[in-house]
């Protein structure tokens, strides 16, 4: 059994099989798992906002989808993953509250997912699976050995994508 490495909010970590990476209680934030299936090197980012260019104070790299994904790619390749073989799985981006659904704040989960997909497409990293949106929190654990992205939610059976 490997070690389970914890990723906080606005944080990212790299790991090598048999270790795994996890982030607890994802709400409107998005968890992005990357993996090189050959070297079994992977990583997980927990981003909070879609776009660093929209914010003046943007030095916190893992806080944003655009800069966070770039940095995660940089760190997994530095660890020995092949840039060309990288594949992704994503989860989170829930809408935790429903009021005034026109409000930008409430829709931030959806915008985080859109920005994540856009950035991954731009970097030509295919998304193999996703479990995004809806209205519930998710704990995720990513295993670079198998590529399994295990998801736990309150009142639901654990499942994987």
């Amino acid at each position, binding site marked *: 059994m490997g070690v389970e490495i914890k990723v906080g*909010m606005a944080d990212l970590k790299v790991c090598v099989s048999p270790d795994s990476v996890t982030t607890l*209680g994802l709400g*409107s*934030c998005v968890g992005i798992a990357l993996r090189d299936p050959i070297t079994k090197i992977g990583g997980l980012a927990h981003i*909070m906002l879609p776009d660093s260019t929209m914010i003046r104070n943007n030095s916190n790299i893992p806080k944003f989808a655009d800069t966070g994904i770039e940095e995660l790619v940089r760190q997994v390749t530095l660890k020995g993953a092949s840039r060309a073989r990288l594949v992704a799985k994503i989860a989170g981006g829930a809408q935790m509250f429903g009021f005034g659904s026109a409000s930008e*704040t409430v829709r931030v989960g959806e915008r985080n997912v859109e920005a994540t997909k856009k950035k991954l497409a731009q970097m030509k990293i295919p998304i193999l699976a996703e479990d995004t949106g809806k209205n519930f929190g998710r704990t995720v654990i990513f295993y670079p050995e198998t590529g399994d992205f295990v998801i736990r939610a309150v009142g639901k059976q654990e499942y994987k994508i």
Partner: protein
Amino acid sequence: MSGLNLDEMSNEYFDVLKELGNIGAGNATTALAQLMQTKVDMSVPRVQLLEFKELGEAMGGEELVMAGIYLAIEGDINGSIMFLLEKKAAKHLVGKLIGTTSEGDDFTEMEFSALKEVGNIITGAYLNSLSSITNLVVQPSVPDLTVDMAGAIISVPAIEFAALGDRMLMIQTQFFDEMVLDGFFILIPDLDSYGKMLGALGISL
């Protein structure tokens, strides 16, 4: 307006926000006691400015199931307010309020709407004190309630703070009746409203 940055907040601002939090939580406790028609005591609130990765732990763990009540506020102060309570404590509270406690872990529809009302009264009392101290108009929206993992609920205000800086201001208050109820208030004024609030108290930015 204003270059107010929570990351570089001076002690003076912090003390003022802390004091606003204290008074607000005190008012909320009084309202809670009236509602329950019992004596409710309150600990001195703990005001913390936390980094995002510290939030989960500060609340007792990201996966702890909590009830979160969230309201938008409008008027002179714009933004939102959230009140969080551990699920067990929430169940105890509504049980006392409606006189019966349902079996099992989940909330019945009636308990759910009672809990919404409790949240409404608690946050309302908090906002009232804020309004009367600052003399600013604060208009709350209809509350929205969710029961889920602490981390997932807290992500909503955290994201709002994330647009301003790298920390979040959180006020933790313990209420006691027969049991300890750990409550968390998070006031999320937008950037302009911070300036207005502090300005109303005679502190210039």
